[in-house]
């Protein structure tokens, strides 16, 4: 369960100026819910996602995820929180270009020193699910856009997160790949994982498996 209470986020620009990305946001996402954040570029969608994933701290207000006040956690604890609970699919994938697909997918789990047998098993399942079995050892920068996105999704799922976050997932894809992504999302819905998508792509607007759509304009929920 995710809750944002009176959250305001301001970014400093230059010495004295600041940009208000979010103004007094209140948001509630239930367990197992799939939520779409709609809004034009610069409306604050990505900022909300960063706050939920504890990549940022709000200027005022609270962010509570699964009972934890993540906005108040110390740096090392937010990282642990992300490792255990969040699967983030970034807009530009943020893969490490010089590593192979397999190595990129294991990255989130490296510090927790998982069991090799379990890990290999999990990797096999994920890569088969995303039809990437033959691309396991290919260096990521040599993969196509669609393949890179699937690797990014696999990385987000490797740790079985309870919250999956996707930031403009179809921004760099053509229609065919966008539809493929939507199919993958459909399969992820299982009533236990919350999925939050931020997008201004109209493809998402009329999907039936999305439980709720939230409009965001100029840092405010309309």
């Amino acid at each position, binding site marked *: 369960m995710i809750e944002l209470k009176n959250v305001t986020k301001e970014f400093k620009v230059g010495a004295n100026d600041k940009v208000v990305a979010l103004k007094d946001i209140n948001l509630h996402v239930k367990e197992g819910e799939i939520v779409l954040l709609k809004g034009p570029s610069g409306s604050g969608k990505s900022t909300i996602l*960063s706050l939920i*994933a504890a*990549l*940022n*701290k709000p200027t005022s207000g609270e962010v509570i995820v699964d009972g934890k006040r993540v906005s108040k956690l110390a*740096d*090392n604890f937010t*990282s*642990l929180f*992300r*490792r*255990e609970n*969040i699967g*983030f699919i*970034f807009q530009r994938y*943020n*893969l*490490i270009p*010089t*590593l192979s697909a397999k*190595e990129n997918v*294991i*990255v*989130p*789990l*490296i*510090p*927790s*020193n*998982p*069991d090799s047998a379990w890990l290999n098993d999990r990797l096999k399942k994920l890569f088969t699910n995303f039809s990437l079995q033959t691309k396991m050892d290919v260096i990521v920068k040599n993969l196509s856009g669609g393949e890179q996105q699937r690797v990014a999704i696999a*990385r987000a799922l490797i*740790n079985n997160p309870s919250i999956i976050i996707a930031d403009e997932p179809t921004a760099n894809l053509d229609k065919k790949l966008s539809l493929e992504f939507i199919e993958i999302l459909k399969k992820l819905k299982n009533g236990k994982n919350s999925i939050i998508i931020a997008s201004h792509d109209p493809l998402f607007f009329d999907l039936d498996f999305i439980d709720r759509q939230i409009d965001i304009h100029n840092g405010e929920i309309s």
Partner: protein
Amino acid sequence: MKSRFNTFLFDFSILSIFRRGSKNIFIFFVFTLLIFLLSSVLFISNSIKSELDTTLNALPDITVQRLQAGRAVNMPLSRVNKLLAIQGVKAVVPRVWGYYYFANAGVNFSIVGIDSFEDQYRDLYTKLCDKFDFDALKKNRSMLVGSGVKKILQNNFYGKYFNFIKPDGGLVKVKIAGVFKGDTKLESNDVIVLPAKKAREIFGIDKDKAVDFVLRIANPVEIPNIAAKITALYPDTRVITKEELSISYQNLFDYKGGLFLALFVISAFTFFMIIYDKASGVSSDEKREIGILKAVGWTIDDILKEKFYEAFIISFVSFVTALCLSIFYVYFLNAPLLKNVFIGYSNLKPAFDLPFSFDFQTFAIIFFLTVPIYIAATIIPSWRVASMDADEVMR
């Protein structure tokens, strides 16, 4: 989560090293070269010192030289009795030795005249020489030479004997009775040992003079006292004790000047350039990577651990490789180019068979001056980046 060693993290570190291959290879080579040069020079100087130390005890307790107008001049033998009269002096041995310049080859031989070619010393010479003709030695007409001398003479067509040129122009023919063993090369290479009588002939030194005196003292503790007494007795002498020789050996290489200063300055400069480059910040690629790692759930500790492994592996492998190469270079190959710095350009090719000497402190110093500093220079900027919000970094 198991408490065993995290092989995934270690794998990741090693992969990271090879991913930024060219830069890391360059750092590896520069490090290795620096440490190789430094440690080779240190090995050589430590070995020379250790060789000197092994023979220190065999040196005379006191050597007395006579100085006239600042120059060393010959000492009258009449002084022997007065020196013997000093309490504590067991023996006073007048010596005849000096340098003979062999013009054809442009080299100096050290000639030492001794009186002990009698039968009782046969075992002594058996120990020191490979094969020699003892009878020829006894007859006062031959000499024992070091291997370097033998070679030079052979190159100048002197096979079995040599003609010394006297001060008055006459010649002294001396047969070569034997060559000193290869094991004593570092001490005997340019030395010629012959009967004192012959030495006087060659140098033109009168029968009643000696080059210097060598004293044997009964009780070593008394040496400084006796030295003071000798100086008081003969103010024109310079008295050199074994202790002073030992101190002189320790200061063989002046670290404040010459070769060593040049070497250290260049090494330090190169090394600190690398450190400065590392410590001045992380490249944008590496910054982005740290941001990604943080975003997917790596804590600052994990990131620093990974950077530590990277830096440690590079610097440790460089250090160990350099050390290994250096030992091989100095002790197995006899330091081909570097030895010319210590040997000079004499035509008499000295040996460079140095004994193995490992001074743990010196290498600990080199290790702690390089490896931890490099590791710190790598970790600190990474820590700065890792402490920032992941979001900022990834942009």
